[in-house]
């Protein structure tokens, strides 16, 4: 069977290629997002279908349609006077000579000649472009309507900050789990996951199905679950490795700035925090909470020129923080050190939030821990460079509800804004999960390496995800037509060209086996076999 679809009729590098479909090809089989190859005279082009149209040779045909009930007339006209057309956006090209074959696919700089044949991409084509599953490449799913495995180079992926976007309920969490497993198996990077909804660590929920296994259940030895809420974890039957407590003295003014909106603080109240920090040093929070009303206080505030009402506003806000049970005057163990110890050993850390799912707790804890871990990484990487020793394991920090950290008002102040911008200099990158990408600072968005997006239907969200991508309008039509579930579009640094795909299965016994066995065969070749031999 040949997969020839048709021939190139018009083309422009800017606007893409129009293809007239051959008569036997049904226009209804052509779906936006499918992947095609164009056999040029000197080179092959790879592209994606971005539009499908019907054409007629004579306008009168549309005005006075023929008798379509007559099968003979219908048969004669289809593919001749009436025909299907597809619009293809060429993305990559591969030259015919040996040298360019070795170089592999290059970004497209020219267009195919007239009447070049257009074929559906075969498995080989996909493999040539995206690579085979190997120690660096991880199968993330299948391109739409294809059986081929779509592989992602995770070594490349973790070098930049990345984003996963999509409306609520489109499968972001499942996709993230798959990617986290990939990073865990196929790259040197370790994950730190701020797990707001307790989805990744032990087990997660699936809509209308039984619970699915989390990372810890699949990779016992490589994952540690930390929790802020021991009681809740115990109730859910999760075996946790560490209970995180945060001391008052660990909270810095920057953390409060981030919480300005959620704590409903005024601008002067936030200013006051810095002054109080200068005045009281590390134990400023404890001191502020201890201050009672009275003459002494008034004098103290006057000396720092803090207005009484600002102070009261601040105090109310800080009381909210104090009510969080995991915040204690003195933390018994240094959570940051503990997390870093695990990360150094190559163990991935999932921090569960238990019942404290409100955004105040999440923003506070994630920002605080990430800032301190990042500064550790920064000094260690700098040291490693100076003394030419091995730098720490690359770290990928996963955050949910990212627009709370990365919106234009606060992104310059939070550590996540810094990580997203400074990227991999210090071996730390972000995996951002969000449903409102338009809420994220455009500067941060533009720095993201690879973006994976499930269905989005808000115009602004789509625009912000696709900002700066070539062929934006074409991708837009692909993105807007993704199925509401389990389909996604990936583009950016880690993939040679954008591709719409269906994430691989997650949740069945077989899928778990595939995930765990893939890791064994490539990551620790030999060991598994040796163990098997012992039992023979």
């Amino acid at each position: 069977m040949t997969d020839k679809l048709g021939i190139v009729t018009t083309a422009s590098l800017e606007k893409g290629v129009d293809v007239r479909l051959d008569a036997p090809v049904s226009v209804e089989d052509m779906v936006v997002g499918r992947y095609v190859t164009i056999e040029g005279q000197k080179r092959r082009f790879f592209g994606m279908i971005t539009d499908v149209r019907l054409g007629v040779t004579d306008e009168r045909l549309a005005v006075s349609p023929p008798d379509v009930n007559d099968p003979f007339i219908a048969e004669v006209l289809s593919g001749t006077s009436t025909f299907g057309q597809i619009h293809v956006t060429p993305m990559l090209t591969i030259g015919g000579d040996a040298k360019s074959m070795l170089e592999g696919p290059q970004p497209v700089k020219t267009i195919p000649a007239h009447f070049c044949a257009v074929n559906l991409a075969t498995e080989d084509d996909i493999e040539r472009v995206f690579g085979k599953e190997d120690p660096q490449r991880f199968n993330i799913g299948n391109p739409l309507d294809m059986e081929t495995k779509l592989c992602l180079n995770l070594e490349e992926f973790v070098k930049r900050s990345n984003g996963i976007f999509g409306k609520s309920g489109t499968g972001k969490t499942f996709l993230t789990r798959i990617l986290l497993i990939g990073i865990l198996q196929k790259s040197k990077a370790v994950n730190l996951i701020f797990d707001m909804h307790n989805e990744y660590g032990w087990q997660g929920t699936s809509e209308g199905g039984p619970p699915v296994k989390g990372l810890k259940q699949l990779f016992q030895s490589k994952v540690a679950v930390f929790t802020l809420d021991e009681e809740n974890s115990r109730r859910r039957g999760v075996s946790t490795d560490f209970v995180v407590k945060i001391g008052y003295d660990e909270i810095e003014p920057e953390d409060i700035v981030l919480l300005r909106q959620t704590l409903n603080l005024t601008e002067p109240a936030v200013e006051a925090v810095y002054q109080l920090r200068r005045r009281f040093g590390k134990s400023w929070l404890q001191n502020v909470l201890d201050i009672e009303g009275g003459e002494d206080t008034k004098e103290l505030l006057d000396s720092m020129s803090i207005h009484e009402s600002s102070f009261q506003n601040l105090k109310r806000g800080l009381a909210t923080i104090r009510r969080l049970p995991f915040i204690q005057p003195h933390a018994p163990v240094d959570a940051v050190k503990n997390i870093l110890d695990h990360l150094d050993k190559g163990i991935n850390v999932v921090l569960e939030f238990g019942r404290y799912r409100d955004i105040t707790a999440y923003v506070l804890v994630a920002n605080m821990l990430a800032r301190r871990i990042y500064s550790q990484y920064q000094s260690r990487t700098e040291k490693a460079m100076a003394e030419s020793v091995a730098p720490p394991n690359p770290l990928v920090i996963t955050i949910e509800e990212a627009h709370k950290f990365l919106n234009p008002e606060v992104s310059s102040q939070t550590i996540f804004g810094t990580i997203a911008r400074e990227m991999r200099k210090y071996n730390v990158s972000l995996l951002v999960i969000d449903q409102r990408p338009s809420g994220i600072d455009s500067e941060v968005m533009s720095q993201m390496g690879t973006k994976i997006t499930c269905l989005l239907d808000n115009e602004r969200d789509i625009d912000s995800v696709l900002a700066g991508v070539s062929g934006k309008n074409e991708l837009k039509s692909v993105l807007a037509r993704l199925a509401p579930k389990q389909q996604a579009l990936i583009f950016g640094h880690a993939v040679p060209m954008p591709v719409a795909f269906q994430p691989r299965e997650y949740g069945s016994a077989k899928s778990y086996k595939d995930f765990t066995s893939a890791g064994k065969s490539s990551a620790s070749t030999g060991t598994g076999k040796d163990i098997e031999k012992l039992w023979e």
Partner: protein
Amino acid sequence: MSPKIAEVIEADTASFVAQCYELYELPPLGALVKTGDIYGIVCHAETAGMEPGRKPIARGRDEASEAAVYESSPQLLKLLRSEFTASAVGYQDGNKIYQYLPPQPARIHGFIYLCQPDEVKEFSKNFGFLNILINAALTAPTEELIAAALRQMSGVQEDSHAFLVAAGKELANLLSNDFIKLKNILGRLKIK
């Protein structure tokens, strides 16, 4: 080979006129005929008096049947003659058939034969003649002629439906800017 049916009496590059040996023994409209190496498709036929100025007169008032008119006036068979015009649509050179206008027009007094099914089948492997017919200056409407020719040819094919579809597609390409004409031809291709 089938018996000769007519003789060329007038010829030019694009067509030839032939007179039948027997009155009314005309080939059907759209039939494929051959004279020498030249193929033609019957595109016009007429029966009239020998002399241009002398019109036939009605003779049957007292006769019981049409046949009786001819029986009582046997000279009629000699005074009337049937003629047809064929549009030149191709020629044979060696073993190959080319569906182009012939390099030379047909020869006067050349014998004309009706093509046999095998020959029709061989000729209709190609649809180049359709373009010649579309562009020919004809007395009969082009749509009618093309439809008649294709109906005739489809009769000798093993798969006449597939043949008509293929011919229809060719026509659809040729008439891509004239859908009404195409529709008229397609509507006339159905046999049943």
